[in-house]
């Protein structure tokens, strides 16, 4: 069973040994995601430090 990236809807299959609270990166949009549940798989956007990206 796969989780869905809340940013871009990519399907993400957890690797064996993934644990709740782990931070993973979406392979499509590179969003940092927090594993909020392993069974069933669920993800939320991880809190991020604000960055100055030329703005």
């Amino acid at each position, binding site marked *: 069973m796969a989780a869905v990236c809340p*940013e*871009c*809807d*990519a399907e993400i299959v957890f690797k064996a040994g993934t644990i709740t609270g782990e931070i993973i990166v*979406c392979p*499509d*949009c*590179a*969003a*940092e995601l927090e594993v909020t549940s392993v069974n069933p798989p669920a993800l939320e956007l991880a809190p*991020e430090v604000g*960055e100055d*990206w030329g703005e």
Partner: protein
Amino acid sequence: MTRVSIVGASGYVGGELLRLLLRHPQVSIHQVTSERLAGKPVSGPHPHLRGVTDLTFTSQSQLEACDVLILALPHGSAAKRIAEYAQLAPKIIDCSADFRLRNPADYDQWYGEAHPNPQWLDRFVYGLPELNREALRGANYVSGVGCNATATNLALLPLVKAGIITGNDVVISDVKVGSSEGGAQGNDGSHHPERSGVVRSFAPTGHRHTAEIVQATGLSNVHLSITSVELVRGAVATVHCLPSQAVDEKTLWRAYRACYRGEPFVRIVRERTGFHRLPEPKLLGGTNLADVGFDLDEQSGRIVSICAIDNLMKGAAGSAVQCLNLMCDYPETTALEMIGLHPY
């Protein structure tokens, strides 16, 4: 082995074709022509090929029969002599604009003169595999693609195929391009003190590649502006689209994934963090890759679709070799699997 000859091989596209095909496991280069450099080694205009080949240029009058003839001539040359070239090889790839457009009247409008052999236009398949892959398989006559048109078309195809942009929706493509688009022959405008450091709008309206975009996408309200910038290789199309129906970001993700899933040379680039968030040509030099991404202005509904390519590769020679692979039933990625340079 497939014996390939290249007509007009002294230019940048010819040099790229040689760089790729000299390492193609199924191809042997039979002849390469240049009227100006006949008898001289190809490593003269293409010094990166030193030690790779001892080929010398011949004149077109010395051309012999081969399996595939690739024409890398200035626009207008191939169209006049296509019947002669067809006597030399059963398969032809023409990298110029001479056989890209289906409608003969488009040549009057965009190239300023009537096509000399309009009866040949229907025989050619437009050489963009992401659009015409099945028609290219086994084809005998294939046209090249315009680099600005390719960057714009690859940016637009996901939106067109998903029906997000249709018919008369406004599309404005702003393409920034490198100096190699101007070819290997210099002019007053390419003189280093005049060219270096420019951000020069050289075709704000009326660029010829507009016709290719209209033909490939079926859209009618397409506007193209070209700006030359401080690059040697590379083109990036920033395509502003005003759809009649509002869309959300996840709908766009689905459209881009559906269009490019499984495409060997197209990558979707839209990252949430970091500084390489969207496509940029700097990462693609020497590769046949096209990076495609997007952004959405949720307030206005404007979609900005972005595509970066190496204009000499995906925009010319790389696409031509990809087409050759399809025409000859070789794996599509043969001789094209190089990775870009970073930093570059």
